[in-house]
């Protein structure tokens, strides 16, 4: 009778130890990561797609046991693309929800109001496709996921392509809005340095819907290249106006900084009208990074369920990369202390599905990697074509180059 008693005691002690360990793990509070994301309003489309990618990372990291042995809890609020709401939301995240780490909302405008808040409280903030938002505040714990740093990093490739086709004159058209103005100022500087003569230089009000008069004015100025800095709705309207009216035979290069031509619904709706346009991008099919193909495969399933951008080439991989950087920094330091994490992020190269990232003192990429690509051979009403390499031929940067620019613009459109 003694043996069974010993066995029973052993079994009991093993069970107790196991349940104790389980209880200890279960009782650990989660690591809370908080953010606001524009899920409605003008930035809502991009924000929703980005959110799918971030949730994928949360699931992935929790599948691996979480951070520091604690589950990750993701808290998100919708800021309606309205900067007036973000200070209140981030204060709630910090003071009521007691989050451990913060991620910035997508885009510059909703992020700008929280920069002084995080600076004053000495908090780490993972940036989310903002442009020059840390320029004034100079917060040393800011790390942007976007593949650019200053204005020239955006437009350099476009101007190099212009030089290659022998452009001597330039027309600059920019929306009278935050990002577009910063970009246009950088372009004006670059045009001056390149010795290009500016023959047209206009801003348009953000609510403009009819661009026919503007396109006619550009055509009359007979520029060699047209640099456009526009927002999604404007970009679509400009492409349609160019398609109807034409910018003239003098134009060798058209595009540059048109936001919205990276979003799948816009690309599908514009179809062949995109041919010939040279525009910036963050990622185009064919660029190889470890894990990116597998990410897109999984993202597209989730995007279908969530009814958001079905291809998700522009924002989602970079949002997943935010999670990867947090994971790498927390695991690397075994800490959630913001200063420690910021020091790690600054010193180390981050390995992500959008490649390796090294940060400069301003929290932007040391080696910017904005792609300038030319749309070619695009057919109407075909989404699948945008999955393939070759529909957006990379002209810049050199390490991703897949072809030479075709000019003039009218020839490239055919």
């Amino acid at each position, binding site marked *: 009778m003694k043996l069974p008693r010993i066995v029973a005691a052993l079994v009991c002690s093993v069970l107790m130890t196991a349940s104790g360990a389980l209880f200890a793990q279960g009782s650990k509070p989660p690591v809370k990561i908080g953010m606001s994301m524009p*899920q*409605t309003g003008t930035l809502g489309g991009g924000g929703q797609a980005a959110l799918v990618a971030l949730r994928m990372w949360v699931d992935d990291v929790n599948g691996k046991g979480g951070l520091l042995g604690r589950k990750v809890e993701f808290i998100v*609020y*919708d*800021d*309606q693309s*309205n*900067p*007036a*709401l973000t*200070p*209140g*939301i981030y*204060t*709630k995240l*910090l*003071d*009521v929800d007691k989050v451990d780490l913060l991620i910035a909302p997508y885009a510059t*405008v909703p992020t*700008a*109001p929280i*920069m*002084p*808040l995080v600076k*004053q409280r000495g908090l780490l903030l993972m940036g989310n496709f903002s442009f020059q938002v840390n320029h*004034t*505040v100079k917060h040393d714990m800011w790390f942007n996921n976007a593949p650019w740093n200053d204005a020239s990093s955006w437009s350099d490739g476009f101007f190099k392509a212009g030089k290659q086709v022998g452009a001597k004159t330039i027309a600059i058209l920019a*929306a*009278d*809005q*935050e990002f577009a*103005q*910063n970009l246009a100022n950088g372009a004006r500087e670059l045009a001056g340095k390149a010795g290009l003569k500016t023959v047209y230089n206009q*801003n348009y*009000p*953000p609510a403009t819907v009819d661009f026919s008069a503007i396109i006619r004015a550009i055509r009359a100025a007979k520029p060699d290249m047209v640099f456009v800095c526009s927002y999604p709705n404007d970009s679509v309207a400009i492409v349609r106006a160019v398609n109807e009216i034409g910018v003239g035979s003098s134009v060798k290069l058209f595009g540059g900084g048109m936001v919205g031509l990276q979003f799948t619904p816009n690309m599908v709706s514009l179809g062949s009208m995109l041919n010939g346009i040279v525009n910036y991008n963050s990622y185009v099919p064919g660029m190889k990074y470890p894990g990116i193909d597998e990410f897109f495969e999984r993202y597209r399933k989730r995007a279908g369920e969530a009814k958001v951008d079905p291809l998700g080439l522009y924002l989602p991989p970079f949002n997943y990369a935010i999670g990867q950087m947090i994971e790498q920094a927390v695991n690397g330091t075994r800490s959630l202390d913001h200063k420690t994490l910021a020091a790690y992020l600054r010193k180390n190269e981050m390995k992500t599905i959008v490649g390796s990232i090294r940060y400069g003192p301003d929290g932007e990429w040391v080696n910017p990697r904005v792609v300038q690509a030319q749309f070619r051979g695009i057919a109407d009403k075909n989404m699948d074509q945008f999955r393939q390499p070759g529909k957006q031929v990379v002209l810049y940067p050199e390490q991703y180059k897949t072809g030479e620019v075709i000019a003039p613009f009218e020839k490239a459109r055919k």
Partner: protein
Amino acid sequence: MTARGYRFWIGAAIVLSAACVAAAVVKNEYYFYAAYVVIQFVVLATAWNILGGYAGYVNFGSSAFFGVGAYIAVMLIKWLNLPLGLQIIAAAAVGGTLGFGVGLLTLRLRGIFFSIATVAITIILETAVINWRFVGGATGIQILRPPVMEPFESYTKMLFVCMVLLAIIAVAIARHIETSWIGRGLRAIRDNEEAAECTGVPTLKLKLAACAISGALMSAAGAPLAMYQSFVEPASAFNLTYSVSALAMPIIGGTSHWLGPVLGALLLGSVQQIVTVTVSSELNVLVVGVLLVVFVVAAPQGLVGLFTKVKDKVKGN
């Protein structure tokens, strides 16, 4: 001073003291962030009610005055680095002058035509600011808060107390207008402007005064926005939701009494704040719309009218 007057000022002193005590005791900053927005709407709704409620001139341009207040503050911070108090006074002065000017241009219009003219003012002023590079233009401008003044421990708490003080001033002005000959004149204009004119009510002068006071208070409410948000850009400073809320809150609370806009703003503002961080901020606008429809149908006199009805019934029984 009447007994009611004493009661009002004692109540105001209690509210201000409670705000100061809360700022000293409550550590969680979020509550002050949220409460600031609600109290800001008390000022806006009260200011709107002076012209819209008492005189019956529906102003859709509240966001224009609010935005002007914010941008006057931005200009003064950038140009002279003036303290918050002077920013508010300057914004009120500019808002009052603007209200007077707008009144001169538009008060000869009535009904829907006046309302459309006030919407146009928002668009004109927003376009002007978009093209004014000194205050950031279309790009917007980031503002770094200066060190907080003693005895406050944070700038947000200071802004909250400041907004409570502004709300008390706004309500006191509205109450004074309501109970004085000015209020009686404005009500006469609302009921029948021709009859009021014929009986010797100086209609244009009263309307201009209401427009200027309303504009001054709205701009004063907008002035601390720059410090509250630490960032100002035209699309959010001149956002039409300020106009919609400033109009909806007095209608929900009741336009005939100074308490109406206060109750409406506290109710709607609080619901909006709660909905933003619980259900979905997209529902904000829906909440305003639904409450507006419900109150217009079920309680056309607003919460104040509903309370009076209930009180009368209880007394009657």
